[in-house]
């Protein structure tokens, strides 16, 4: 039994994958709480999908994915901001953003499906956590440091703005600057995490653990701790699944994250159900 647990991680490839999923669990669990509480899930998903052409172009041109991703995310952010502005009147903001993001994503797919596309480009969509390199881990470690530091420093301000925007303004806090900080961190997290989890699944790690934790906790610190634990458990579980059942690691992790969320939902409704008669 112990052998079966330890066996997968005897290989350097799996060790690096393990380190990567744990780093992403820390980012997803902490930053994800602010994504969920701030209602930024849709924005995070839009950024992730909108950056796709940047990733594909980088793969086609043979430049580092981080570079293409960064350019792609800037273009996506600009397109989303413009669409959000344009979407006043008959077309809602969300609809305008959806059109912009789908256009970008379609453009990426068009490029990815061209005959010139190198093999393995589907890794951009679904990620390949098993091919995590030392450089990826370095980027992941730097991301963790930046996110944790920023969230710690801005904690009380983010809390006050999230709790009540008008009240925070009366306290002299600048909500737009804090919004920008949060979105910047989300963009950074998507950029780094997309290497391991892919364009389609990266949002799962930013949203699902925090959403599950929200259902089980009612303070921010325990919420973050539970979210990190859920992300780590799903990450490790996904690696085992991919090793023993031979299914894609990214998809296994995303599947387990969703399962964890559904489990948290069931738990919280059972708890509420049993607590109700006492009131």
């Amino acid at each position: 039994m112990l052998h079966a647990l330890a066996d997968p991680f005897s290989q350097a490839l799996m060790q690096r994958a393990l380190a990567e999923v744990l780093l992403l669990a820390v980012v997803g669990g902490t930053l994800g709480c602010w994504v969920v509480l701030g209602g930024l899930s849709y924005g995070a998903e839009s950024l992730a999908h909108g950056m796709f052409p940047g990733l594909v172009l980088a793969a086609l041109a043979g430049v580092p994915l981080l570079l293409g991703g960064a350019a792609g995310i800037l273009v996506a952010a600009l397109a989303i901001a413009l669409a959000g502005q344009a979407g006043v009147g008959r077309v809602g903001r969300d609809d305008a953003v959806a059109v912009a993001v789908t256009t970008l994503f379609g453009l990426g797919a068009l490029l990815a499906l061209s005959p010139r596309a190198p093999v393995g480009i589907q890794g951009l969509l679904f990620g390949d956590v098993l091919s995590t390199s030392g450089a990826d881990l370095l980027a992941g470690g730097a991301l963790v440091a930046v996110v944790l530091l920023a969230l710690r420093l801005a904690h009380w301000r983010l809390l006050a703005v999230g709790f009540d925007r008008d009240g925070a303004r009366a306290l002299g806090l600048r909500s737009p600057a804090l919004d920008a900080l949060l979105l910047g961190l989300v963009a950074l997290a998507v950029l780094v995490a997309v290497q391991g989890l892919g364009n389609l699944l990266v949002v799962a790690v930013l949203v699902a653990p925090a959403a599950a934790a929200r259902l089980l906790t009612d303070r921010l610190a325990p919420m973050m701790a539970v979210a990190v634990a859920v992300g780590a458990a799903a990450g490790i579980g996904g690696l085992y699944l991919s090793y023993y059942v031979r299914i894609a690691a990214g998809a296994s992790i995303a599947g387990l994250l969703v399962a964890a969320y559904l489990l948290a939902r069931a738990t919280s409704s059972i708890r509420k159900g049993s607590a109700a008669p006492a009131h």
Partner: protein
Amino acid sequence: MSALVATAALSVGYGAGRPALADVTFDLRAGERIAVLGPNGGGKTTLFRALLGELRPSSGALALDGRCASVPQTERSRLDFPVSALDVVLMGTLPARAWWRRPRRADRADARAALARVGLADRAERTYGELSGGQRQRVLIARALVQDARTLLLDEPFTGLDAASAARLEALLAELAGEGRGVLIATHDLEQARRWDRVLCVNGRQVAFGEPAATLTHEVLAATYGGAIVTLPGEDPAAPHHAILPPHHHHHDHAH
């Protein structure tokens, strides 16, 4: 006695164009409760935002002695947010601290003392959203007290409270005024306004300011509420009851 707030021909607006509130000349003395009456969009929120320093006067003078702190309506805050009553009060200590600093032991002690002051010492660790409406309003008052503000600006604090909670809040406001604070209360309740020290009636501009008995005449109320007012037949024809129409309150009355 020096005034905590004094304005002279104060006008405030949002950018170019006609000011949202014009020609306001009033003063708030220590220990006074002043009701701010006016229709939704009549400039009550604009006045508060000017006193808080969020909006610059476009003309006129505004002098403050000590800090003003805002007590917003509780339903404007997120009731589903994972914060305790103590967390909410601690938000009030933010302006006095450098942005990278976390609350210190002294800040926590101040926050607990403010909660005790509003009678909620035993609710400090409770989740804000699970408190009753009256308790939430008192938590927001504690958040204002912890800012060491001499003037409190309350935005329709009695909205949605039951009679017991409203009486408790009314008593608390009387105590705070008794301690030498100035209290400005935006309200739609004329009967309540009559019990306080003075009233300020606004409708895009100042309509009247003074002691309730002399100020709240039918003419002033008609000018304040734009004619949407009826006189109810009372038992004493010399003291008719006024009612404001429409009776429903818009909770998100942004004055623009």
